């Protein structure tokens, strides 16, 4: 039985894991870098171990330091959270060698799913649909033949490619030959290798993923889908479940494939099968994330499970108590990721000191964060401050609730993505549930359109600033202790002493 867990992470996910530990009566151990001495995960944990300088490459990513802290603290298990070492097969293997339970899948599963080509082959063997594509080809005629087999539109990609070079989208058969030639010659020029491959081009792609859980006894279940198509620079911004695109038949099909995918690598623990889905609900395996996802709370809310507790129970060797046919999606949940970034300045990161924070509360709102007033968000790590999760009976009500929660969520001191998220909630395509991964690009004008100018609000702002200015001027004058009378000096001291309280 796991009685003590080291959480090899920081920020909101470290605290989220520790919360479940506390509910299970498990002692939690934090690790922290120099920048994180005052971080909330250190304050929340039962114990805390220092593991080195601020850059994660010298602390959170150093296997030896984590293992040292685990041994010093005498934990039974390590929870890796997401990011950092969570999908590091060597780390999982090392834990095993050291006799520490790694709360996650086997290093074999991590490794197999971590390599795209191996993962694709494994899925093909397991009968899971993958994006149709060719093997590598050099011959032009072969390429044309393959492209026709796959069916247009296709992407022609240079095998050695990257950065869009040697890549061609082909919509019409008449362009096929010329595009293949162009791709090959560009690839040759850029990479000195004209090997190419051909992949089906997915129009209007949706990113839909399935949460799965597997135990050590061969049981695997899925906990339905999450729609994650609202992305900026391949970074998820808003997630929801159920997906507005989904229907019960496709959900069951995809869920079954997700289970098959996990079984193909004897998966144990929590994991996610990502699919790319087109508007006609054709779906293809994209990749597997062999860890807890940032967006796991929306599944927790709609299905009614605590995924971290499930992870720990699985790591304990327990059989899954959840049965597939007893699971249901109930209502609708949306997650917004709150980043410390300035939407008005091209999403420039905005680290700094939190001067004031009001967290949104009330019915149907879950808030997983880690910052507090006076906390300085360090420059070294991810800019995510918190995750705002709402639930409601319907999608429409969930959107209204998210707007209400975002309205009440106030942070000063750093810029945040809150105004941008509010705008997403008002975007007609989002409101209608008609969106794909091109959503932010397609709606950028609406999303970036400044709110209408209100002169009265401007005047209210002036009033606040001016009154604050006058009052601090007065305070200052009252406090300036030029100090020629004893009485005055005493007053000064008293005021200083009072200010400190």
């Amino acid at each position, binding site marked *: 039985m796991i009685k003590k867990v080291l959480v090899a992470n920081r920020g909101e996910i470290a605290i989220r894991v520790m919360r479940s530990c506390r509910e299970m009566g498990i002692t939690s151990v934090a690790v922290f870098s120099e920048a994180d001495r005052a971080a909330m995960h250190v304050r929340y944990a039962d114990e805390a171990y220092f593991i080195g300088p601020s850059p994660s490459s010298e602390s959170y990513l150093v296997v030896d330091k984590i293992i040292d802290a685990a041994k010093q603290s005498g934990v039974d298990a390590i929870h890796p959270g997401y990011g950092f070492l969570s999908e590091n097969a060597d780390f999982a293997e090392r834990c095993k060698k050291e006799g520490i339970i790694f709360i996650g899948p086997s290093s074999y599963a991590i490794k197999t799913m971590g390599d795209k080509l191996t993962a694709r082959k494994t899925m093909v063997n397991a009968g899971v649909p993958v994006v149709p594509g060719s093997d590598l080809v050099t011959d032009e005629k072969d390429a044309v033949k393959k492209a026709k087999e796959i069916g247009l539109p296709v992407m022609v990609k240079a095998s050695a490619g990257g950065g869009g070079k040697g890549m061609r989208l082909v919509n019409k058969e008449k362009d096929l030959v010329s595009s293949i030639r162009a791709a090959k010659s560009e690839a040759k020029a850029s990479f000195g290798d004209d090997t190419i491959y051909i992949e089906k081009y997915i129009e209007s792609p949706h990113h839909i993923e399935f949460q799965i859980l597997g135990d050590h006894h061969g049981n695997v279940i899925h906990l339905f889908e999450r729609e994650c198509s609202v992305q900026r620079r391949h970074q998820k911004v808003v997630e929801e479940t159920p997906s507005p695109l989904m229907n019960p038949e496709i959900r069951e099909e995809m869920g079954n494939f997700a289970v098959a995918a996990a079984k193909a690598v004897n998966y144990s623990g929590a994991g996610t099968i990502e699919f790319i889905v087109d508007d006609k609900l054709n779906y293809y395996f994209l990749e597997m994330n062999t860890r807890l996802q940032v967006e796991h709370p929306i599944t927790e809310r709609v299905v009614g499970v605590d995924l971290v507790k499930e992870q720990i129970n699985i790591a304990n060797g327990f059989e899954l108590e959840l049965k597939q046919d007893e699971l249901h999606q109930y209502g609708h949940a949306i997650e917004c990721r709150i980043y410390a970034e300035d939407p008005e300045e091209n999403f420039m990161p905005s680290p700094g000191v939190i001067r*004031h924070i009001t967290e949104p509360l009330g019915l149907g709102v879950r808030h997983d964060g880690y910052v507090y007033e006076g906390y300085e968000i360090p420059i070294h790590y991810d800019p995510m401050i918190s995750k705002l999760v709402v639930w409601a009976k319907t999608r429409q009500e969930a959107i209204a609730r998210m707007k209400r929660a975002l309205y009440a969520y106030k942070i000063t001191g750093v810029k945040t993505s809150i105004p941008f998220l509010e705008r997403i909630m008002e975007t007609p395509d989002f409101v209608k549930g008609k969106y794909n991964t091109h959503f932010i690009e397609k709606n950028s004008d609406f999303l970036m359109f400044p709110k209408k100018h209100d002169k009265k609000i401007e005047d209210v702002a002036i*009033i606040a600033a001016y009154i*604050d200015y006058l009052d601090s001027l007065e305070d200052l004058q009252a406090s300036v202790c030029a100090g020629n009378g004893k009485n005055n000096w005493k007053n000064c001291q008293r005021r200083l002493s009072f200010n400190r309280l």
Partner: protein
Amino acid sequence: MSTEIKINDRTALVEILSREGNKVRISIDGKQYDADVVMVEKGVYSILLDNRSHNIELIHTENKNYKLNTYSKSYDIEIIDAETKYLKSRRRDDSQEEAVISSPMPGKVVKILVKVGDQVKAGDTVVIVSAMKMESEYKVKKDRIIKDIKVKEGDTIKANQPLVIIE
């Protein structure tokens, strides 16, 4: 006595007409307001104006400058009182001041691509700063000469701190 207050690009003429406790009568560009103004938390004001409830959060950034959030918008505000005016009038109107390259975000200097005395061309990247896993490149806008370099690679920098001086 009126005071000039700069809010974003507008400059407003502001005068307190009367003030008793949290009841303030104030004139802004000739428009008169009766407001009920209370600082409810440090830096957070509740203002009732014609019974509308407004919440304003402000940070005193430096001198007489404020950064201020209302529900719908953010503002930069500067109080231009007599002292500020005096200081501004004394400031030489010298558009040939030495130019400074700085980063509006705090972070870490990842790379400095120039050395003192280098001639750089418009659009050349001078320094790369990273924060929160994101790198930003800072470039010169015109052909310039590097006069001084104030930081070294690996340094942690504050927002708007001078990094490279050009002329």
